[in-house]
Each structure stands twice: as structure tokens, then as C-alpha cells.
């Protein structure tokens, strides 16, 4: 039970740290709020699902109204502390959705980055290694630059772009039912380069909306609402929970694919599944937050130094650490009088820290 105890211990500690940074982050902003007010307001916002109902709404697709099933969730709110109304509004409707979305996105990127690094046995692997982010960027920038062409909204377009790109890279790198990771890596680099050209071209065509497109490309959580959280959180939780049972297989895969096969892992099948799950995880995150670099690269490296290479421990802790990291960096991004895209902060803080680790030879191999 050692590994289970360690995993529980580390996860609890990181969850507590996450709760702490969420609350502290919510005190920061144009209006200073006390920690106790924020805590109460946050607890008031905690909803427990108490019922489900299905209704048929309409969704417009390419201008046509289509019937669309909608699941309505009813919540009950167990806490009712008395908090000044404006403070509660600021915490609940402005700051918390953004902070929670940051946590969710960081969680997804940290988790996906861990899987990709283990999968590729390559320290340079990050969640976007097979082109997920660049694919999302094409979808998003196309929507911004050519809104007439893509009628179904920026986030779905980014998500579709990400998934299609990942799938295309996978197909390009697969031959005869086998997908060598080296080929996958190179195909990913080539496709990213190509799509980078597409993004640059689209930016030139974007005219007035150039700034919006650039903002998206830098990654930001500005203006996030509960709607984004509702859309992203369930998907990310489901995908992550699906990944956890493969932590052990990832450990075995780190010893090499041939070894993994002799230890009973159906290698190609497992690779396909891991790639699909982690690409979807990344796609769900970048679709709402844009291209946020470095989280998925350095967080797994940091956690590997702390907890070791066992993915049963590394996967949950990296995901939670990714959440903490992104909440902290996004707080810095918005604490600035002139709000910065969080992607700038993660890269500006992450790169020097990574170099520091590199120079101290803490990070050499995986």
C-alpha cells in the first residue's frame, strides 16, 4: 500500500495548496478583498448537483436552428455565509470562474504533459508535441480572421482544429499498424511548421481583429465565465480519470516498447489510447484558454524531481501542480495594471526556471 499512501498524501497536500492559492488569488484584483470574505463567498459558491433534467433546446448550426439535447443540472448550495453583496458578486461571478478555469486548464496541461513525456521518453515532449495547440490555433485564428467561414464559434473551432491535427499527425506517422514514436515526433514537428505558416497567413488576413487573434495565441483566461468551466471541467475530469489506470503501463513503457510487450502490454493499442486521451485533454484545455506554453513541459519535470518517475504518483501530482502553477501565474498576469496574457507569464517564468534546473543538471533525461 506504500505507493497508494504516497499518492494520497501528495495529492492531498497539492489539493490543499491549490485551495490556498485559489483563495489567495481571489483576494487579488482592482478591489482588495480580505481572505475571510473571499473564503466565505467561495464556500457559498460551492454547489452540489442535486438533480438532472433533460430538455431539448435549439442550437444553430451554419445558420440553421437544430434541435439539441441539453442536460440541465440543478445544484443545491449547502453554505450560506453572509457576505457583502458586491464582494460576493466579484468573487463569485468575476474572479472565481477565471481562477477555477485556470486550475482546470493547468490540471489538464500538467497531466497531458506527463503522459506525453513518458510516452515519447523524451524530455522535450509537451502536450502539444503532435500539433494539438497549433491545430487549435488554426481553428481559433480562422474563426477570428474569417468569421463568415466558420460559423460555429471559436472554442469548438479550436477544439476541432486540435483533434483533427492530432489525428492527421497520427495517421501520417503510422504504417502497417505501427506508430514509431520517433516518426510521430518528426511528423508532429513538420505538421506544426506547416500549420504555423497557415496561422501566420491567417493573421495577415485578420485586419481589424489582429489583436484579438494575437491575444488568443498568447493564451489567456480573460473574461472566463462559469459557462467555460461547465464545458471544460467535466470533459477534463473524465479524460483524466480514464488516464489514471494507465499510469502503470506508462511506467513499463518507459523501459522501452519491446520490454513493455514482453511484460504483457499491447503496445500499439496502449499508445493509441494514451495519445488520444492526452490529445483530447490538451485540446479541451487550449480550446478555452488558447496556447499556454511551458506548463506542460516544466511542471512534469519539476514533479519528477520531487516524487520520482513512477506515473502512479507523477500523473496526479503533475496535474495538480499544473493547476497550482497556472493559478499563480494567471494571478500575476491579471495583478499587473496592464493585464498580460498568461502565456507570456508562464513562459517568462518557466523558461528561466527550466534553464536553472538544466544548469544544475537536475533535468538531464526524463
Amino acid at each position, binding site marked *: 500500500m506504500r505507493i497508494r499512501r504516497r499518492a494520497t498524501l501528495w495529492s492531498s497536500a497539492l489539493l490543499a495548496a491549490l485551495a490556498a492559492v485559489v483563495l489567495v488569488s481571489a483576494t487579488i484584483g482592482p478591489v482588495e478583498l480580505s481572505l475571510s470574505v473571499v473564503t466565505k463567498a467561495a464556500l457559498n459558491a460551492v454547489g452540489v448537483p442535486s438533480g438532472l433534467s433533460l430538455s431539448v433546446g435549439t442550437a444553430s448550426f451554419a445558420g440553421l436552428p437544430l434541435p439539441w439535447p441539453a442536460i440541465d443540472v440543478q445544484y443545491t448550495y449547502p453554505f450560506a455565509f453572509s457576505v457583502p453583496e458586491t464582494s460576493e458578486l466579484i468573487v463569485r461571478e468575476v474572479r472565481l470562474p477565471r481562477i477555477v478555469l485556470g486550475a482546470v486548464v493547468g490540471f489538464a496541461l500538467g497531466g497531458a504533459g506527463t503522459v506525453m513525456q513518458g510516452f515519447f521518453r523524451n524530455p522535450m515532449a509537451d502536450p502539444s508535441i503532435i500539433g494539438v495547440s497549433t491545430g487549435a490555433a488554426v481553428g481559433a485564428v480562422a474563426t477570428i480572421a474569417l468569421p463568415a467561414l466558420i460559423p460555429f464559434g471559436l472554442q469548438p473551432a479550436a477544439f476541432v482544429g486540435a483533434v483533427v491535427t492530432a489525428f492527421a499527425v497520427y495517421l501520417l506517422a503510422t504504417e502497417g499498424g505501427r506508430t514509431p514514436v520517433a516518426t510521430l515526433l518528426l511528423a508532429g514537428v513538420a505538421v506544426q511548421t506547416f500549420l504555423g505558416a497557415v496561422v501566420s497567413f491567417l493573421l495577415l488576413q485578420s485586419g481589424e481583429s489582429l489583436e484579438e487573434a494575437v491575444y488568443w495565441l498568447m493564451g489567456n483566461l480573460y473574461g472566463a465565465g462559469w459557462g467555460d468551466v461547465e464545458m471544460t471541467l467535466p470533459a477534463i475530469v473524465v479524460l483524466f480519470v480514464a488516464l489514471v489506470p494507465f499510469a502503470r503501463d506508462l*511506467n513499463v513503457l518507459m523501459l522501452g516498447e519491446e520490454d513493455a*510487450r514482453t511484460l504483457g502490454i499491447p503496445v500499439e493499442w496502449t499508445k493509441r489510447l494514451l495519445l488520444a486521451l492526452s490529445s483530447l485533454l490538451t485540446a479541451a484545455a487550449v480550446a478555452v484558454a488558447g496556447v499556454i506554453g511551458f506548463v506542460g513541459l516544466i511542471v512534469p519535470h519539476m514533479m519528477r524531481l520531487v516524487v520520482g518517475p513512477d506515473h502512479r504518483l507523477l500523473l496526479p501530482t503533475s496535474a495538480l501542480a499544473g493547476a497550482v502553477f497556472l493559478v499563480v501565474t494567471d494571478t500575476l498576469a491579471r495583478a499587473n495594471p496592464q493585464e498580460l496574457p498568461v502565456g507570456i507569464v508562464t513562459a517568462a517564468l518557466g523558461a528561466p526556471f527550466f534553464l536553472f534546473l538544466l544548469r544544475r543538471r537536475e533535468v538531464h533525461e526524463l
Partner: protein
Amino acid sequence: MSGLLSVSDVSVAFGEARVLDSVSLSVRRGEFVGLVGPNGAGKTTLLRAINGVREPDAGTVSVDGDRQADCSAKAWSRRVATVPQDTSVSFAFRVEDVVEMGRAPHRRRTQFGTSERDRRRVEDALELTNTVDLRDRRIDELSGGERQRVFVARALAQDTPLLALDEPTASLDVNHQVEILRLVRDLVGDGRAGLAAIHDLELAARFCDRLALLSDGVIRAVGPPETVLRSGALDPAFETTTAIATNPVTGTPTVTAGADIDEGRATVVSDARRVHVVGGGRIGSHAIASLRRVGHEPSAGVLRTGDVAFETAESLGVPIVTTPAAGPVDPDAVATAHELAGDASVVVLADVEIGPRQWTLDLAEGAPAVVLLEERSLSERLHSGDRARERYERLRERATIVDPGDVLSAVEAAAGPVEQPADD
């Protein structure tokens, strides 16, 4: 004692290249079989076909009657455990964690921790491989020998009837090579079966119950080491000339490859001579092999059976006259030796002993040219009276006398130039 592993008519091709061509092999419980053969013979490919990494293009592999094609990866890995050739790991897994990975085939996906049974198997594996003390060390900080033991432990934790090992001794020091193979042999003794690709023929012969010689994707010979390690089988497989002898310490065959090639020297003399070598042991053996190597036609004798020179001469196909290992020298053999010596243009006395009957001197005296290889002083070798000493001294006056290492140049000098027919 029926076959545990049965490989029948397995063929594997990479594109056009056929790497295994209808290979059949069976390994019984309690048996350790060594797979030998030159690089590129298909040893690793055969192991991969057996452990499921490379599905054969034709033929079947079965363990205990279960066909590999009918088993899932997981089910098959409960039957065959593999110790890989490359055990270098750059990840900081603890030794115990690596060994525990061997339990993967026995676990349900939902199982997160370690069951009591898993723990017991891991414990046993650590103990059997003497890696208990290493359990908390990082695998990437171990020496090659230690790492190899850890991977054997992992294979044991897998709890399979068959152990497959791909070059378990490559890149290990001699002491660790022996340690690992001894370990595998002991483990196989417990009712498992072992199959290992081993490039070192002598180690394979020493530790394996049977050897299978593979070359160009075909099994050339299978059987006990003494029957497989014969020049007749090895020479075409390795494309070299081998000399087989018996290791005086282990009693198992030793193989000298390239017995006909001498580095840094012209390999073949232009004028081959008939040379008769008298005297055995290390010096006689070397003289015979050297002469043969450069293209001369040596003969040898009288040699005692079991003498190193006897084995050398026999494995090189050099004509010899022998006498039993113990007892007086057979007079008939001496007579035959005279025939061989009489036919030779040079007689070499290889640091010979001179006994009371002085037959060694008799052989030299009639020869047109004599070379004396001397390492020990005469008195150490002389077991006869003054008459023998006088005869030897007389021989020295007309002979070419050199250190044993210079036998080739001495033979050249003693024989003189070959007379060329004069041009008209």
C-alpha cells in the same frame, strides 16, 4: 520431459530479407539451451518471435501447448519472460519498482497498489538473484552486472515457465558473465526452461545443456555443446577456420576462431613446404598452428592423445601420429612418424624431451633441414645419457635454432630458397 517451448517452422522476413527460415526448436523443462551463431544470424529475431515482440510470418510458437497466436499479449507474458539485451535505463526507478513491473502480466487494470501475492513474488525474485540489498537503489545508478541481475529478477517476478535471455552476458566483466549464467542455470534447474542467445561460444558451452547453432536464419546444428561446437559446423556458420580444444579448467570446449589467419602478416607463403613437427605441448601446438596458418603443410608426431598439440592438429586437419596418453611410446607410431618426417623438407623439434630411446632425435637426424625450437635448457629436457647430449649438440651445429615464437622465419631459413627451373 516433453517440450515446454516448441517452435515449429517459424519464418520471419523483414521486407525482402528472410531473417528466419523455417526454424524449429524445442526446449524442455529443466533445460538451458544456448542459441549461438554469428552476428546477424537471427538469434535476436528468434527470441523476439518467441517472446511475442515480432509475430512470425509463418510457423507457430507454443509454450505448454498454448499457441502464441491464440494468446493476448498479457496472457503470453505469463508464459515467457524476457531479459532484454539492453538493460540501460535512464530513469530513476527504484530497483524494487523495476522488479515489481514483472508483476504487470498478473494484474488487473484497476489494481493500483501491490497485492500480497505480488509482494511475495517480488521478494522471492530479489532473494534468488541476490539483489535484496539493492532494492532501494536507483536502477540508473547500478553497475552493468547489478542491472542485469535486477532484470533477471524482474523476469522471475513474472513467474513464467520459460525464461528468454538476449545476450545476458554482453558488456559484462568475466566475473559477472559467469555469475549471471550460473544463476540462470540454477533457476532453470528449478523446473523452468531457459533459452539464451549467447555470442560467447565457450560460455555457452560451459553453462548450457544444449546449443542450437543458427546462421543465415537456419538452425545448422542442435545438441550437446561437444557435438555442436565442431569445426565442421562452426566454420561455415562463422565463415572462419576454428580450432576446438578442451578447456583444461572447465573440461568444456574452447574455440579459437581465425585459426588460419595471422594479423599483420602475409597470410599465405608463396612456397608451401612439408614440415614435420616433433614435440607437443604449447610450443608444438603453436608451431603446428602457425605453419598451417601461413599455408605450409605440417604433419606432427608422435603426439600423446590429449596433448594440446594433438587437439590443435586434429581440429586443423593436420596429419598426426599418436600414442596413448600414458605408457611407453608405441614403436609402430614411431615408424609411421619416420614416414611422415621422411616426406618433409624440414623437421621441427619443438622444445622436445629426449627420452632414453632417443626417438625424437632419430626423427630429426635423417631430415634435410632441421629447426630447433628451444625454450628450456637441454638439461631440463634430457632424460638420457651423454650419448644423447652429444647427438643433440651435433644436431645443433647444422640446425637453425630459434625461440619458439620465430618458427616461421626459421623454417624459411632452414629450407632455403625453392629451386626455380632455369630459363633457357
